[in-house]
């Protein structure tokens, strides 16, 4: 679904990414981890079409990425909800902007599944941080994207809420698998969710190693098998 070949990126004299090659399958969940400043968010923005690579090429569903597109959704670090819109209207925003027609039934369904039934008419500031990020998740699903790009979506949340939302994301992916690129610096989240984990080394960002996580789903945080993979990753990150 996503083909990244020979992608490098630099801006303002900073060499952020160098020679990235990566394939992401149609139903594959790929996590990208690395220290801060290793260019993982840049990689995500390149796939999203928010940035253009200095060299190399990115294909999504066979066509080169030149600008943001409707079948690719992005979920950001912070919920980025519009404070004047109700929860429902926020979820419907991509449908409006992309001209997808009336998606109200689908929005209600998504909110219901995310445990936000009954909150449709609320404004974002009336919700907790975790609930806001759930709304953001529903919003990134409304357009039925083929590719989901997720940028450290839980980094601003407390540990318990993080766990809940990671499990939520796992549920979403199990219910309807998509191509997902999930940028994080949490090893545990990566192991919980990903089919493959890409470890980036910093300055310039290069692929240090790719780790397959061949464990049955659903997985749960704290599972012994996950800890083994986590340990391996910790070692890899230390040498990255």
């Amino acid at each position, binding site marked *: 679904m996503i083909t990244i070949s020979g992608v490098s990126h630099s801006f303002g004299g900073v060499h952020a990414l160098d020679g990235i090659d990566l394939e992401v399958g149609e139903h594959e969940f790929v996590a990208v981890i690395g220290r801060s400043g290793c260019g993982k968010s840049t990689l995500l923005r390149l796939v*999203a079409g928010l940035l253009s690579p200095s060299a190399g090429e990115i294909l999504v569903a066979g066509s080169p990425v030149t600008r943001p597109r*409707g079948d690719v959704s*992005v979920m950001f670090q912070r919920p*980025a909800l519009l404070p*004047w819109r109700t929860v429902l209207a926020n979820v419907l*925003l991509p449908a409006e*902007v992309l001209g997808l027609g009336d998606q109200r039934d689908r929005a209600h369904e998504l909110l219901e599944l995310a445990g936000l039934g009954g909150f449709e008419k609320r404004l974002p500031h009336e919700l907790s941080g975790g609930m806001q990020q759930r709304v953001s998740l529903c919003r990134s699903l409304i357009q039925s994207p083929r590719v989901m790009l997720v940028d450290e979506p839980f980094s601003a949340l407390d540990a318990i809420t993080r766990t809940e939302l990671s499990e939520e994301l796992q549920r979403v992916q199990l219910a309807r698998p998509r191509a997902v690129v999930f940028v994080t610096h949490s090893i545990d989240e990566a192991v919980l969710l990903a089919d493959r984990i890409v470890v980036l080394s910093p300055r310039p960002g290069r692929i240090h190693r790719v780790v397959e996580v061949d464990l049955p789903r659903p997985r749960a945080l704290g599972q012994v098998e996950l800890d083994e993979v986590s340990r391996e990753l910790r070692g890899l990150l230390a040498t990255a």
Partner: protein
Amino acid sequence: MRAALPVLGLLAIIGLWWLATIVFGIEPLLVPSPADVVVSFLELPGYLLEQTLITLWEAVSGFALSIVIGVPLALLIVGSSVLERMFYPLLVALNAVPKVAIAPIVVVWFGFGISSKVLMVVLVCIFPIVISTASGMKSTPGELVELFRSLDATRTHEFFKLRLWHALPQIFVGLKVSITLAVIGAVIGEFVGADAGLGYVITVSGGSADTSLAFAAMALLAVISVALFYLLTWAERKLVPWSEEHRVL
């Protein structure tokens, strides 16, 4: 209790004023007592209310016109850096000119009627509206702009579904500044040349040494200003419930 406090404050000031006129034996010609002012009003209630409505109408229509011109102007300024560089300094310069200095020319151009007053109101009101709208739109958080970009949103979407909405709380700040200026603008216009309105009443009564009538007119001006200001504050609460502004004010 909270609602009673402003009334209490007002009564205290009126009481002090009354006391001062009695204790110091001030000539009613210089400072009339509150009672003199009320008597003046009661002698001509119909006439004074009519003049109040004229000034109110000038202020409100000039204010409305300022919104109709000012907001699109801000959109153009935010939308095009070329237009911004061409016209923003001019706008600042226009605002720097004392409006009292322009008033006589405006009256020469537009006559003694209402249109010269409305133009004066627009001249004083438009600047805060343009500035607050433009800066509100420009201060849209980067993450929201990026969200719209990730949806490949058009510029029209970005402006009307994002930036203008985000600017609304700040626009209201500009509107609240403008509405009080609007009444001042109308009165300046009436001072310079008019045959009606509260400003005209003040000029005429000043000329005939009827100080208490002038005070009555000033009190009516204050009432209009306060009423318009709180009407806007109320509208803001209704229209911008997500704003943090009225949690402070």
